[in-house]
């Protein structure tokens, strides 16, 4: 049997979550790796849209940044940054928004702004919003990919950079947010989905070899694990080979660490 890392399992699981033909707004780092893996495996018709304005990019290697030249060279269309937000993201043309997070809470709200309780004097200053608030609002659905730990999976985010389900059922409707919100959160331990009744993120799948207690210990709220929760199918040989070949394209073009 092939060996794999938990990051590889996470990336493969995220790639699987993307159906072929889907229009996907991709952030750099793990989302971009997963989306490019999907394009190389089961979803060759995946449409990748990057906030740099590259629509339908078909990179033959992993892009090193959101504005990598390979995206412009292979895109169906390259548009300005205002246009990508106004004409392409805002009207709900994108099926899936693919986000990372520094913190995510039990209702799928995302923080990438500050750690601490004082915006003017934070414990940690994070990069900020970027495209995330409008991706989280406007895409038909959102997939989050993030490593699971008590520091990251918190009861309530210190700062709502991007809205998930707010404080629970009905909040997205009340806020008039057009998209469905975060339907899947993929971590290195398993997969979480919002409970259809309470909107609380609930573990619906654990990756092979991950015990329920480990997932609970990595979560900053009393984590519910669905009774029906199964085990993620381990990465297939072909998936792993494709992922490793993809990551090798980075090492070839530069030794830069690919994550943000």
């Amino acid at each position, binding site marked *: 049997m092939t060996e794999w890392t938990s990051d590889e399992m996470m990336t493969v699981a995220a790639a699987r979550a993307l159906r072929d033909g889907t229009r996907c707004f991709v952030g750099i780092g793990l989302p971009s790796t997963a989306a490019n893996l999907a394009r190389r495996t089961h979803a060759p018709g995946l449409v990748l849209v990057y906030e*740099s304005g590259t629509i339908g990019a078909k990179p033959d290697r992993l892009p090193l*940044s959101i504005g990598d030249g390979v995206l412009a060279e292979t895109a169906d269309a390259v548009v300005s940054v205002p246009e990508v*937000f106004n004409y392409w993201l805002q009207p709900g043309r994108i099926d899936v928004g693919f986000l990372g997070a520094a913190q995510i809470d039990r209702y799928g709200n995302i923080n990438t702004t500050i750690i601490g309780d004082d915006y003017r004097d934070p414990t940690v200053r994070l990069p*900020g919003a970027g*495209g995330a608030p409008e991706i989280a609002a406007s895409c038909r659905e959102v997939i989050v990919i993030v490593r699971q730990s008590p520091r990251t999976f918190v009861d309530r985010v210190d700062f709502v950079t991007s809205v998930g389900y707010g404080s629970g059922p009905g909040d997205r409707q009340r806020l008039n*947010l057009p998209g469905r919100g975060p339907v899947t959160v993929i971590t290195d331990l398993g997969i979480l989905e919002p409970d259809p009744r309470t909107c609380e993120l609930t573990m619906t799948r654990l990756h092979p070899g991950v015990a329920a207690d480990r997932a609970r210990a990595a979560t900053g709220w009393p984590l519910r694990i669905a009774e029906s929760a199964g085990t993620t199918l381990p990465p297939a040989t072909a998936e792993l080979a494709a992922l490793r070949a993809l990551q090798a394209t980075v090492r070839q*073009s530069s030794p830069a660490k690919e*994550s943000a």
Partner: protein
Amino acid sequence: MAEITSLSDAVAELVRDGDTVALEGFTHLIPVAAGHEIIRQRRRGLTLVRMTPDIVYDQLIGAGCAARLVFSWAGNPGVGSLHRFRDAVRKGWPAPLEIEEHSHAGMANRYVAGASGLPFAVLRGYTGTDLAAQTATIKPIACPFTGELLAAVPALNPDVGIVHAQRADRAGNVQFWGITGVQKEVVLASRRSLVTVEEIVDELAPRPGAVVLPQWTVTRVARVPGGAHPSYAMGFSERDNDYYREWDAISRDRDAFTRWLEESVLAA
């Protein structure tokens, strides 16, 4: 009306202490050399505007040029944090840094309003987030036809807009292609503008995906080959990913940064 000058003359003429200055370029075509020239000319009290403040803004902040930062994503892309930015925000070193924080969609639309001669722009943005409570330049606005509430953001009209482009002709008409970001908008929104270019040519042959800025929209053009390094200029250079990675260590430490500044910018 674009005048072709040296980079140092252009910065000396266009950038004044206390100005609002925007250096744009979305990963591609970042006008880094112009930023270093601003550092060398020791401008102070600038309001720096940029959607994605990255290494060159970390350098400007660390060098003490900035009093204020207007932005939507401040990081070292693919690497991590901006340590000079963090140090200025949290410890006020070397100078306190006020921040005005938006999302990309908000910033892009602020430039669009600026380029359009409108006082504000409207977008579906910020709803339900904590940003609006921290940022005075985000306000609700109602659609006069449907009553729906949306977000309004005020126009950005920098005193100086600075971009890097692949080329200009001898009259100062500018052409750039690849990922074109918000560069057209920032030049059109700004009172004065500087474009650094890889080359100056006799004629701008049309190219797929190229944006052309007529010479009468640009104040100064300066030929600065490699002026986007460590970012890239499609057709001319590759992104220097090592530089981004190595910046992390240099910028973590005030002394290491100060040494770097002396050797790599001020002595240059």
